[in-house]
């Protein structure tokens, strides 16, 4: 990818997988090592696009995510959350990650809509990895939501009796 302008090159992170996407001067696109032709038009429904990727027709929904440079894409009935970094940002990102800054792995979100039944800890409590933090009822079943990492409970974002939507933040644990 030496002949592409670095402004036209991106690193995309999705579900722990990284791939490189470069937009070539001739209008084609390179995904990792594969060069593909690309034609995109917007559908009448906002946020929806008809892609012809090497002539293969795909309807894709693209919407902005919660934070800058994050996107949600629906492709083939599957939902993906992607982080798109420019070349410059990806260097910075790697550097910060190596330095241990900006880690947010301790934030737990609701994977389905439900009702908070019981909160088992207080902010400031120490928790082990796998220790129950709260009990959430979803699909008429009670599920214990556990801490993914050992650490200290930084804050609880919900109260007992509160109904939460899918994707809502539940609590944050800070590595001690």
């Amino acid at each position, binding site marked *: 990818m030496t002949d592409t302008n670095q402004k*036209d090159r991106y690193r995309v992170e999705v579900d722990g997988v990284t791939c490189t996407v470069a937009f070539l001067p001739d209008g084609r696109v390179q995904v990792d090592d594969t060069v593909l032709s690309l034609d995109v038009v917007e559908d009448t429904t906002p946020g929806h696009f008809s*892609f012809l990727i090497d002539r293969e027709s795909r309807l894709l929904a693209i919407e902005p995510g919660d934070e800058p440079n*994050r996107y949600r894409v*629906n*492709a083939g009935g599957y939902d*993906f959350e992607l982080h798109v970094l*420019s070349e410059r940002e990806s260097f910075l990102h790697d550097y910060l990650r190596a330095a241990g800054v900006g880690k947010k792995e301790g934030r737990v979100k609701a*994977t389905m*809509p439900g009702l908070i039944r019981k909160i088992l800890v207080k902010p400031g409590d120490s928790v082990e990895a796998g220790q129950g933090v709260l009990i959430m009822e979803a699909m008429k079943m009670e599920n214990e939501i556990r801490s993914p990492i050992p650490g200290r409970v930084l804050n609880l974002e919900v109260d007992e009796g509160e109904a939460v939507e899918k994707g809502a933040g539940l609590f944050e644990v800070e590595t001690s």
Partner: protein
Amino acid sequence: MFAKVLIANRGEIAVRVIRACREAGVRAVAVYSDVDRRALHVQLADEAVHIGPAVASESYLNGRRIIEAAKQTGAEAIHPGYGFLSENADFAELVESSGLTWIGPPPVAIRAMGSKTEARRLMKDAGVPVVPGTEGGIDDPADAPALADEIGYPVLIKAAMGGGGKGMRVVRDQKQLAAAVEAAKRESLNAFGSEIVYLEKFIERPRHIEFQVFADDHGNTVHLGERECSIQRRHQKVVEECPSAIVTPEMRAQMGESAVRAAEAVGYRNAGTVEFLVDQDRSHYFLEMNTRLQVEHPVTEMVTGVDLVELQLHVASGGAIPFRQDELAMRGHAIEVRIYSEDSLNGFVPDTGTLRYLRPPYGYGIREDSGVQQGDAITIHYDPMISKLIAWAPDRETAIRRMDRALSEYRVTGVRTTIPFGRFVMNNGAFQRGDFDTSFVEREFDLGLLEESEQAWRRIAALAAAWRRHTETSESRRSDEHPLVESVAGSGSWKATGRRQALR
């Protein structure tokens, strides 16, 4: 025929009944809760009445309010659809005592079939085969070992008032029996307010095959053939077909006769469904009777050519069934796939959200019964079924290919759906051979296959997201208005881009 009918339901079944009413020249009255004011069933009805807040217990389950709405609009009859109040004998009684017609069976038939032990006893007396088991509930858990020995292991403990798999337990030997009976009693008491449980022979790997029946006020009871409903997840059907791949004309005649006898034994009227378990030897056993129209009724309609909802209206208004049993003709093959707002990759967990994009498939042989429109919200308040897709073809193989084609065209964004699962079933060898039973999902469903397909789409998604950011940044580079937008690309610049596109 009635002049006006109120439909005490929402979603796709309300739409289905409203359509049948309007075709029959009957004015249709919809009811709706706070969150359903813009729903399709309200838009398609002739009249609509608000009945309460989103929570079903105060709207679609509020029988008094619904009867008030019928009175207020001058409706003569109430069609309950399925779910909600459809199998509530008290409500059916209230409808009738209010001087309205209940489009369904007599309350006494609903009640008889509502108790599993009572239904078993009635069926046995009527000569309908039932799964070998105890006559009534087990009063003393100490009696259980002797009863189980008599039936033969494995046995199934079931709740008399139960349904949906709750209170059910398989016991393979005597050692587990006492504890299992106690646990089933507790579960049944919590779920159904009754601790009556009974024992049945556990049928290994059965098929679930049901018969559509119909009875009128003129002494006619007929069946309209079977529906194969063995493809289930969490004890709930997801794929149904008519006819069943294993039912021969002789089997159909025998099972149909059992179904008609079951209906006659409880003085049944209108549409009903008799469910059977079919074991490995192709013997059938009465399971239960659903005293209402079923979700999967369209596959029967496509194959028999009978509009079941129109026939419900006709029979409820005093008409006779217009055909004899020997005139029933079945033509071709129909398959239904239920499209649920659920995540197939994650244990079929219900999903909620807004249907941002919705484009159902069309084309030869495809029918879609849907109750939603693009922009509608799928909420936790109601059933997560979005629609039913039905494919008809002259033969089963073509119907499967047609369904797979239709599913591949279906586009939904905003919620996860069971469309990938439906495609998995259509492409599965055991399903294609007709060689399956109710354990299909646990035996055949290979998450790996769906994940592989997800992986292929992941690269395409990565390309799409990068393209979006790239076009946003190159547009903002060209724009004098937002020279610094690159560093904050995201929702802000998204809106700016949208505005510029709108101005072009």
